[in-house]
């Protein structure tokens, strides 16, 4: 019988350390020991599991390895000692937009041990870590709720002011970001002041899946700019870096023919993770897509020939991207975890 790792290795290309591209190989060597990446991928039995690997793709471990559940969307606590993720019944299709509402919230040690459910199915939606890891912010129809993680007591509630999914708490605790209805438009990433609830958009038109940079001043998000001729006028989703006030906006990565999702900046902000898929949305309904890592200093970076994108961004780089395997919604910690192989 094939083992879990054997199955995944059929689609996993750890490290590309032996890549024929010396620049990619150099990138792999540069990041190999920089902490761990947690991500979701299909494991044995084709159910989704939470995996861990080194940033170069080596040291692959299945942290959940459950055939009776689908487990996905891991998020390290700020100190890297714990993981939050969601566990769904086997066969439940993970919705690329609404996964934060699905299944039960789970908390575990960062090595996957001692996994415990928190609340019932559908409870504690979009749980996001506080700065000290002692609380979680959740998004409900009634508003943003802050819960004590140990007791699940709700300690605060505030209006959500249009935010309807993908809520994330900034590392410094001062802000929330999320996807909101704003000025009559859906798919608008906003920043919300965590004290007074004031909201500002950070980018207009068709953007989503935001995540914070470590300094809490910038966000990484996916954006599908209007006016793209490709894909019958629908265009392709790209990865963008935006300031919290929306004043600064910069392409990080794009590639004609692919939609870029799952943006996650490394704890020192020097690198960024993403996934790329042919279909829009990140393809959590299928198996996700290749997980890529690049240097933030190489942004704006365009992959492939991408003639349409290069016309719009003629000064963009063609910089190395290390692909570490197939998955969805990766997250990065620089903490050391358990006994690494």
């Amino acid at each position, binding site marked *: 019988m094939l083992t879990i790792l054997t199955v995944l290795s059929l689609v996993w290309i750890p490290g590309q350390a032996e890549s024929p591209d010396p620049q990619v190989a150099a990138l792999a060597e540069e990041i190999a020991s920089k902490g761990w990446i947690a991500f979701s991928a299909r494991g044995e039995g084709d159910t989704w599991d939470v995996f861990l690997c080194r940033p170069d793709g080596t040291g692959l471990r299945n942290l959940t390895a459950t055939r009776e559940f689908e487990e996905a969307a891991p998020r390290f606590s700020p100190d890297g000692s714990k993981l939050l993720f969601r566990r769904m019944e086997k066969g439940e299709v993970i919705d690329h937009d*609404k996964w934060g509402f699905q299944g039960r919230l789970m908390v575990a040690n960062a090595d996957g041990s001692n996994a415990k459910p928190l609340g019932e199915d559908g409870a504690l939606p979009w749980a996001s870590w506080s700065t000290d890891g002692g609380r979680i912010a959740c998004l409900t129809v009634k508003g943003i709720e802050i819960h004590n993680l140990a007791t699940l007591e709700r300690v605060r509630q505030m209006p959500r002011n249009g935010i309807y999914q993908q809520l994330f708490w900034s590392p410094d605790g001062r802000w929330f970001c999320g996807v909101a209805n704003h000025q009559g438009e859906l798919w608008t990433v906003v920043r919300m002041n965590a004290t007074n609830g004031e909201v500002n958009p950070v980018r207009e038109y068709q953007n989503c899946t935001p995540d914070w940079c470590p300094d809490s001043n910038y966000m990484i998000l996916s954006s599908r700019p209007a006016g793209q001729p490709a894909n019958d006028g629908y265009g392709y989703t790209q990865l963008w870096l935006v300031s919290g006030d929306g004043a600064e906006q910069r392409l990080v990565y794009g590639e004609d023919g692919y939609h870029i999702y799952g943006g996650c900046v490394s704890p020192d902000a020097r690198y960024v993770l993403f996934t790329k898929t042919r279909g829009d949305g990140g393809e959590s309904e299928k198996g996700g897509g290749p997980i890529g890592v690049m240097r933030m200093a190489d942004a704006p970076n365009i992959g492939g020939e991408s003639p349409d994108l290069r016309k719009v961004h003629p000064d963009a780089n063609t910089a190395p991207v290390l692909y570490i395997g197939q998955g969805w919604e990766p997250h990065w910690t620089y903490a050391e975890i358990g006994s690494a192989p």
Partner: protein
Amino acid sequence: MSWSLRFLACVCCAAPFLYLGCGEQPDPGLDDQVTTRGRIEVTAELLEIPGEFPPNKLYDYAYVLKYRVLEVHRGDPGADILYIGHYNPLKPRQAVVDKRVKDIGGNLRRYRAGDCHRMALEVPIDDFYMGGIINEYHAETDAPVYWAVWTNRVVR
């Protein structure tokens, strides 16, 4: 009277009945759900559909439509013109329920400007629905957006 004249007379007498039999019967859009759900119940005319309903291939959403109230059955809508959000309007109301939005429905199959709907409503929409909302009227009014809980077709 000749046979042809008799035949013509019969046809003339039957014509009104034939017309009524083929045309739609008035329907007030009543059922147990529309009269009990939500806090407000109105019969209203859909004035326009301001844009195209996006396909549901990638995402779900509510679409705000503009109505003129014709009759108030329950509650106080507070205005003659209502802006009402309908979930995934491309889907018939009988098939619109999903894992995220459960307590809605009706017998309406499609939305057409000029049609009348009997609706059970809640307000404001954000207290009852959390998801994407397309609101083409956002710039022209800050009137509250209602949430369509139950939507039935009315034939007047």
